[in-house]
């Protein structure tokens, strides 16, 4: 697992090394049920996520308080680096169980859901009966981890995010990606790839961030709802680059490139390919029965999409967002 600052193509040949890393991580983890040492190391992945605020300096020099996730080596270890999107949760083809233990260093409750996975959700409600959290919460400064277990996994690309007041907390940055191949170097059955690119989209409304971080968000306060959301920074993998393009280098010519898109923003975005059209393999980790070719990929809020193409001799360009 690694933090992704810049969008970089990852070779599928790295996968075995990562699997080893994952295996050792799982081996030393403590889970919510039973002794982790007795479980088959490669079928279970443990991730320790810590939700916490951090400050990001935008390209125009403005400091914006973000909420993000860090991946620690153990609950309370605090050795991970905070980012938004949070660290990629990497599952392997034979991973049958994902356990996420959440530490909450924010000053409000938070939680974790993975969109698209079947999940039982013990909701938490506000005193007036409205839902506050889709699932069990970690209270601020929790001394014991809150554990989320996913045992119905499938290949694909998924969005994880906070399940608590998502209209506030997701735009603050509490989101990230989960990916799981169907086999080493294979996205879905019969869809092999040589290289892989993961692009997580999100948006930042700095005024809203200031209000939330400054205690000015809530009933009776300066900002009472997210209705006036006006994002000003458009992030791809955490950097304000959505106005630009990704260069698929001609040196990759002839290689099969898998691009995994995750839209963690609240608005639609449309990645557009030039010099190539791509096979739309799946949405939300569900493979299409009959994949079709596209150049423009409509990515509504919360959507994930996987596309595959063979890089032409010219290389290719990926305009991050034709709606930008």
């Amino acid at each position: 697992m690694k933090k992704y600052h810049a969008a970089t193509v990852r070779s599928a040949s790295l996968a075995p090394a990562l699997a080893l890393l994952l295996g050792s991580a799982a081996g030393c983890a403590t889970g919510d049920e039973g002794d982790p040492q007795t479980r088959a190391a490669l079928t279970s992945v443990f991730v320790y996520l810590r939700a916490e605020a951090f400050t990001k300096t935008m390209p125009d020099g403005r400091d914006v308080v973000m909420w993000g996730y860090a991946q620690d080596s153990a609950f309370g270890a605090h050795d991970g680096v905070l980012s938004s999107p949070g660290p990629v949760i990497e599952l392997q083809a034979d991973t049958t169980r994902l356990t996420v233990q959440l530490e909450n260093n924010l000053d409000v409750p938070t939680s974790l859901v993975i969109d698209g996975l079947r999940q039982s959700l013990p909701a938490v409600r506000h005193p007036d009966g409205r839902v506050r959290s889709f699932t069990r919460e970690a209270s601020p400064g929790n001394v014991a981890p809150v554990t989320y277990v996913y045992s119905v996994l499938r290949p694909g690309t998924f969005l994880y995010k906070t399940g608590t007041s998502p209209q506030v907390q997701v735009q603050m940055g509490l989101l990230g990606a989960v990916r799981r191949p169907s086999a080493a170097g294979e996205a879905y059955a019969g869809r092999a790839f040589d290289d892989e690119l993961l692009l997580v989209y999100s948006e930042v409304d700095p005024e809203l961030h200031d209000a939330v971080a400054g205690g000015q968000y809530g009933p009776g306060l300066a900002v009472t709802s997210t209705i006036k959301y006006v994002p000003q920074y458009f992030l791809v993998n955490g950097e304000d680059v959505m106005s630009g393009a990704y260069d698929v280098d001609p040196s990759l010519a002839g290689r099969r490139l898998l691009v995994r898109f995750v839209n963690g923003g609240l608005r639609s975005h449309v990645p557009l390919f030039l010099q190539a059209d791509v096979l739309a393999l799946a949405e939300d980790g569900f493979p299409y029965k009959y994949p079709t070719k596209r150049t423009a990929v409509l990515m509504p809020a919360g959507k994930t999409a996987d596309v595959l193409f063979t890089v032409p001799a010219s290389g290719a360009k990926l305009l991050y967002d034709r709606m930008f």
Partner: protein
Amino acid sequence: MTRANNEKGRYRMNATNRHLGALLAALAVVVAAGPARAAISAQCPADTDGMDTDGDGNAGNDNVCRHLIASDGYADMADGRLLYVFGFSEILSGEPLDMAVMNHTLSANAPAPTMAFREGQRVYLTLSNAGFMVRPDLFDPHSVHWHGFPNAAPIFDGMPDSTVTIKMDASQPYFYSVVDPGTYLYHCHVEATEHIQMGMVGQLYVQPKQNMLPAGTVLGSFTHRRGQKYGYNDGDGSSRYDVEVALQLDSFDPDFHDASESVQPLPFALMEDRYFLINGRGYPDTVRRGPMPNSFDGQLSQKIDAQVRARRGQRVLLRLSNLSVTEHFTVTLQGIPMHVVGEDARLLRGPTGLDLSYDTTSVTLGGGETADVILDTTGVVPGTYFLYTTNLNFLSNDAEDNGGMMTEVVILG
């Protein structure tokens, strides 16, 4: 090239005065109109063709008559704000037609009464126009546009430029031979941007003849049993369901509604919706079961809740549609995947029979688009699940947080 701005500096009555004014205007019109308003009529021919076109075994009941009346009224947003709306209500069979205009004063429903029919029925729909009690200065005609009805003829399509629309105190018949099952929607098409924003929208769907098959009929590898229902004539049971819930997405701009109520210029260019609705309600009103009285005069103007209830193992058909005039919406159901079997009132099947249905986590609909989604609750842990827009800033009732486009799906054990 300055854009029009009708909002800034505009005199705004406070809510109490505004609604009181409306009530006085309404009373004045009722008194003035008196008994002369009697031109409400309906056409409802008997089914005498001797053919059982809807396949229910009865050759004499294929003609179905419904009667809508257009008026204005009020609806409550989930933050308690009362909005002036235009809309349809229903004149039920047996209601005295000479009293209909009086009885349907300020009776606009938000959304309009749901129109659900069976394939093979012949629908005689009457639209009457009661006028606007709060806006006696307006003389708008109205129409019914059955959005998506295949091979429409303009006379029954409701698009005012190419047909006739009904003036106040009069009634116009519409006819539909209902032969294509699926999820449609309907709305008034007169001054479409304004009348749809003001709430003249409703749900419309047609159930397939496959529901009428004799028990034991084999459909591919599936055997039809009595009472089993389907979204489409799928021939294989793939669109079968146990529970059917129609959810219409919509949104309102309160400034537009207030401008209409207080006879101000309408802010078309500045239109920005701030209430995000399912079946005319924002969360948590979406899960308030049954009809909801408005806070103006207690009329049950928001009749349709949006809660979904099913027993574990049942299949739920969600008939999703969007009639917002400003937004596409993406909706997801946390924890339960969606299987899309139909779009725009057509089974997702290619011309040579390829199965184009698909699984997904969310569905995106623009205004005038529909989708039929099957939820398979097999193995779903009983409890409450949340269906909501992933355009998360729309989880607001204007300035109130924790609301907007969300409802609850209750899976019972």
